[in-house]
């Protein structure tokens, strides 16, 4: 990512609070997400991780606080004020879902074409150029196809291109969802438990992919994950949430030794030595 200063964070969350009635799902959370790095958000179930994602991507309107994106071309954007489709389209912050949300009856390739809807729709000029089959539209369509096919090849999905997405195995669907998100051209990719339900070999492949995206493609990655083999191996930076509050932040090494984190996950203060082993599994 040329033009991005490594020291300025790509995303700064300030004093974010999300209340549902009396319950504060996120309580006064501040967080900086460094550009071009992999940041993990971890925490026990119900800690507010997915709510945090929903606030970032416009699905929830936070009660208090701001989410600032440093877009390399468009400058500072306030994500909390954008509707969800603008977050993906204009701010290029794209997310995946904890419970996979593909378009199950459409083929894998179609799924990836839908992700490029905005460019294609613009090229089809209210569908008129598309209906007439004008060359401008045809060129845009084949460019979109090439991009989709490119990602499918890199994620080893190309032999599944013409199959209905919903009929494929779970691990494959996870990869398709990531491929689809990549077709939106994200600068910040938010992955909600991408390793859930993957076998050890598949999650090792996922690690490789995430490192490749961050290091070679310059895509900043924000990751919610329970699988510590993924979190500890790929993250540059980890933020731990519990009951909507940030209880720790730092490098994987620091987090593994943080007494607050250990307490949050296991509830007890004793037997420190065993717990280190547990966390690094």
């Amino acid at each position, binding site marked *: 990512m040329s033009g991005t200063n490594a020291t300025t964070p790509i995303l700064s969350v300030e004093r974010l609070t999300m209340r549902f009635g009396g319950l504060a799902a996120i309580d006064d959370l501040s967080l900086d997400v460094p550009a071009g790095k992999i940041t993990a958000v971890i925490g026990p179930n119900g800690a507010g991780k997915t709510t945090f994602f929903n606030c970032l*991507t*416009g*699905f929830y309107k936070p009660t208090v606080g701001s989410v600032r994106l440093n877009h390399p071309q468009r400058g500072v954007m306030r994500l909390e004020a954008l509707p*969800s*489709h*603008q*977050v*993906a*389209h204009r701010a290029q912050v*794209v*997310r*995946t*879902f904890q419970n996979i*949300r*593909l*378009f*199950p*009856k*459409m*083929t894998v*390739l*179609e*799924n990836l*074409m*839908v*992700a490029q*809807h*905005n460019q*294609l*729709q613009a090229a*089809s000029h209210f*569908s008129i150029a*598309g*209906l007439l089959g004008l060359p401008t539209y045809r060129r845009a369509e*084949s460019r979109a*196809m090439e991009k989709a*096919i490119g990602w*499918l090849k890199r994620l080893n999905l*190309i032999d599944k*291109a*013409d199959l*209905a997405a919903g009929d494929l195995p779970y691990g494959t669907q996870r990869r398709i969802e990531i491929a*689809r*998100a990549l077709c*939106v051209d994200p600068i910040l990719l938010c992955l909600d438990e991408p390793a859930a339900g993957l076998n050890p070999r598949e999650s090792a492949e996922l690690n490789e992919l995430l490192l490749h995206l961050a290091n070679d493609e310059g895509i900043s990655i924000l990751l919610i994950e329970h699988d510590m083999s993924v979190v500890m191996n790929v993250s540059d930076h980890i933020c731990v949430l519990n009951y909507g509050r940030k209880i720790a932040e730092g490098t994987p090494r620091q987090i593994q030794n943080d007494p607050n984190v250990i307490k949050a996950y296991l509830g007890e203060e004793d037997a420190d030595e065993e717990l280190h082993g547990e966390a690094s599994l």
Partner: protein
Amino acid sequence: MSGLVFASDGPTAAERFKDAGVITFIALLLGIPMVGLTTVDQGGALQVATRWPLLFYCLIAVFLGRFVLRFSLDQLKQRKLASDRAAAQSGQSQAGGGKWLTLIGWVALGISIGLPVVYSDNRYVVDTATTVLIYVMLGWGLNVVVGLAGLLDLGYVAFYAVGAYSYALLSTQFGWGFWEALPVAGATAASFGILLGWPTLRLRGDYLAIVTLGFGEIIRVILVNWTDFSGGPNGISSIPRPSFFGLPFKPPGDDPTFASFFGLEYSPAHRIVFLYYLILVLALLTNLLVKRLRKLPVGRAWEAMREDEIACKAMGMNVTNVKLSAFALGAMLGGFAGVFFAARQGFISPESFTFNESAIILAIVVLGGMGSQLGVVLASLVLVLLPELGRDFAEYRMLLFGAAMILIMIWKPSGILSHREPTLRYAAKGGQA
């Protein structure tokens, strides 16, 4: 568990007997008051008489009937299972099925073009075929909203009515011709589509169905009650018929007519055949439009929205526009069909636009297989022709109709043609490379 394991082998003879026996017992319970006992008039007073032998014959018929029905259903199920297995093994059935469907489509097109030539002297056949085509066009229009975009619309007839009344009013009040009124009526219907779509953007499934149902009724009630505007329950009559590029279908007079211009002998069949070809052309244009739109970004967006609206938003899609475009296009196509309907009938009243019509059009889409264009044609044939063929059965007509629908839904739960053709293929684009 054992039931699961042996399910593929079908039930044993004992199970079949038991099943038929249970059904016969139920028939017995129902039959005692309904068949077994009857009242007879004896000297001015009503007496209860018994008909046990008749009941006995009925029970035997029920027992045998159930036995045969169960047997044939199981047979059907097993054959389907076997063919599914074979399809899964070969994996070629999809492509082969697609080829078959294309062939059926072309044959259907050929028949529909040739039909009025063969039956040019049979007004009933051409008229019925015209009705089928109106429903085909309505089905294709609603298919955009329900089949592709997945928005359950129970008030589709409202747009049909808007189209019909637009043409009726424009022609009777302002003297507009069919071809001038067609786009205006279509645009009016489309704006009504947006009018319905806008407040219902956040609704889905059952809730949307209720609102659209209400919308359909609102339009009908307005048409019934706003007498100054729509003629109320009396409707609008003497709507001008469409002419052949300015040549009217009339007995020879001072002005050139269709018959005199082409040097033909005047026949009222000319207009019937012309109307048939007119709706055929309109329907084919609709088909072409919807087919092409489906392969464009907007069509894929409709289908994606049907599959998962939240994922669409996460991909940066403006769901509002996608929804409104589906509503507007579906309404416009319904409006076109309405214009044709008004021009063909020459008289319209709110009677023609009841909920019943919406239900039939929706049934066509669902029965045909959501999103399938050819399925809509087949379902329209079934739904229009069955009541026509059933005329000999008089009051049992609707019973026959209902039974046919139930049978189709058992045989093909996701519609007659549920196969979905992808909008683009990697294999087609030199995928081997």
